């Protein structure tokens, strides 16, 4: 199959969906500029022009409400936030309006807005430009929340989002945009709530979302060299979450490491651990481990940033510790963002 980068896959899904559905409008700050949101909106702008690919003023709060109002009247706004951190300003619209619209007006209509939020990993993006907010979005009923890890899923989940009658948050990690993978040319929807076994294994389960799926895969590779067979579960969407796949895998391996770019406390990794504790606690042959950023804001200085961002090496160590194996031979594994040329 033909290969695309993650950002090309997003771009292609956008163009195909906009072609099929004239009610879709892509909107965001400078979505029409030369960078085209890291190559994800430029093609749509070239194809559909400013009538459907719309630069908007700054004002995240109102725009969330504007999108809800338009969606409830039949438009299908696809809103881009170049950092998901900016979505703090849009949270009233997201949680009090979009997520609750259908329910609180008695199931009489919907407001299916789609919002892309980009997580600004690396290159000193710092405390307010690199947060991973999946755990927040996942908490609220009424939304779908997807965290595509592969180009194929970036395309397929965006397609599902643009066809859904429920509001959807798509979180994309900037560190994934250059990643290549096979992507079907046709618009194939990937459903929400179905995970993916990114790598099969027997000894330990690593559950991950978004960028951490790749770190988990890299860790699994290293672990294989240690004679450990790790299974990597890519949840793909965190709401709904594929509980069954997680529990089946842990039932098989008896060991669980959760890898996430959001903080541990009240986070994605907590939910995965809880799902296991609720459903298959007896399967656990060792304590669950959470591999997440430490409990502090993201620092800028690169040695700190490196230490802050959990990666393949930490996952590897956590797995070996969980399995009580010797760890002295874990190699240093380069950060995924190594070699990146700034400014971002």
């Amino acid at each position, binding site marked *: 199959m033909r290969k695309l980068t993650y950002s090309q896959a997003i771009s292609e899904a956008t163009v195909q969906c906009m072609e099929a559905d004239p009610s879709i409008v892509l909107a965001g700050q400078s979505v029409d500029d030369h960078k085209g949101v890291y190559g994800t909106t430029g093609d749509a702008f070239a194809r559909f022009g400013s009538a459907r690919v719309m630069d908007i*003023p700054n004002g995240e709060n109102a725009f969330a409400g504007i999108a809800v109002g338009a969606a409830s009247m039949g438009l299908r706004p696809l809103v881009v936030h170049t950092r998901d951190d900016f979505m703090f300003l849009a949270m009233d619209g997201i949680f009090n309006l979009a997520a609750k619209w259908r329910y609180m*007006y008695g199931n009489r209509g919907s407001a299916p807005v789609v919002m892309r939020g980009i997580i600004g990993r690396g290159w000193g993006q710092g405390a307010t430009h690199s947060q991973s907010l999946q755990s927040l979005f996942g908490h609220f009923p009424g939304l779908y929340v997807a965290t595509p890890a592969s180009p194929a899923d970036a395309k397929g989940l965006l397609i599902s989002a643009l066809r859904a009658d429920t509001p959807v948050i798509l979180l994309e990690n900037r560190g994934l945009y250059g990643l290549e993978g096979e992507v079907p040319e046709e618009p194939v929807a990937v459903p929400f709530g179905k995970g993916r076994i990114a790598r099969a294994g027997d000894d330990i389960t690593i559950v991950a979302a978004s960028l951490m799926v790749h770190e988990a895969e890299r860790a699994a590779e290293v672990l294989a060299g240690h004679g450990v067979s790790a299974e990597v579960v890519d949840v793909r969407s965190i709401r709904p979450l594929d509980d069954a796949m997680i529990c089946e895998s842990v039932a098989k391996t008896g060991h669980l490491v959760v890898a996430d770019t959001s903080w541990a406390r009240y986070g994605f990794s907590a939910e995965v651990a809880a799902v296991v504790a609720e459903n298959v606690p007896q399967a656990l042959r060792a304590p669950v481990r959470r591999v997440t950023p430490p409990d502090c804001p993201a620092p800028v200085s690169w040695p700190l940033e490196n230490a802050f961002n959990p990666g393949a090496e930490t996952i590897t160590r956590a797995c070996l510790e969980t399995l009580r194996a010797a760890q002295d031979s874990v190699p240093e594994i380069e950060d995924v963002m190594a070699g990146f040329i700034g400014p971002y």
Partner: protein
Amino acid sequence: MEPRQLLRNMVRIRCAEEVIADVYRDEQQMRTPVHFSIGQEATAVGVCAALRREDVVYSGHRCHAHYLAKGGDLRAMVAEFYGRESGCASGRGGSVHLTDQEAGFAASSAILGEMISVATGAAWAFAREGAPRVAATFFGDGASEEGVFHESLNFAALHRLPVIFVCENNQYALGSPVDARQPPGTSITGRARGYGIRAEQVDGNDVQAVYEAAHKAALHCREGNGPYFLELDTYRWREHVGPHWDHELGVRPRDEVESWIERCPIRRTTQALRATDPGIEDAVAAWDREFRAEVREAIALAKASPFPRVEDLLSGTYEN
């Protein structure tokens, strides 16, 4: 719309709210907060009279009058207050989440200012469709202080969207007078003009004046001239939330409340019509009886209607 009809619509709203307030207080069976517009009927009636059925209206927490004025189903509203499945939001939303899509009352919500943006979004959809529809949104003097006001007006003005921003300035937000919250010597209308929006401040207790201003506003929007802003000065008689009078609690000066009761929009219109329509007072009295009966009937009906089924608790959270 004829002044007589405007008056009749106001009387209906007044009757509905007064009856509901009494029953609410005495029975404690409508388990949802209620924000009455008693004394503010002219704004709702004047604006909605200038709109068409296909135009849509949004409102905030104080929304009963707007819902009724736009033609919302009274029975469904009352049933909503009683949390019944036959409620306009199937008992899920309560008194602050009214909706009647057929009547063009799109939605109300209880987070200050939210609907300013939502109405702007609806107008955005209308403008894109090229539909000659108008969205109007009611909000208070208090809501105008929220950031969403600024962001929404900017967007609406920039894209010349067909939205009428209707600020009901009833001089208070909760117990806080407007001059404790906004700088002296300024006005909400003045701020709206800062976005290049055509804006007018009108006596909100003069239903005819409101109607005429809204008519002009709707025409302006429909002709593609962009948004319109109306600031309507008025006053709520009762407490912020609930059926009581708050001057009895010392919240607002009694003479202030009384001076506004003097300016009752219903009385005023009745008096204005008396010269040309000598039977008007009898008509009002008859309407009053008619509407109170209508509301009591709606209440009886609501109470006899089933609650939502607990098995349906989750339904409506997601598409099916």
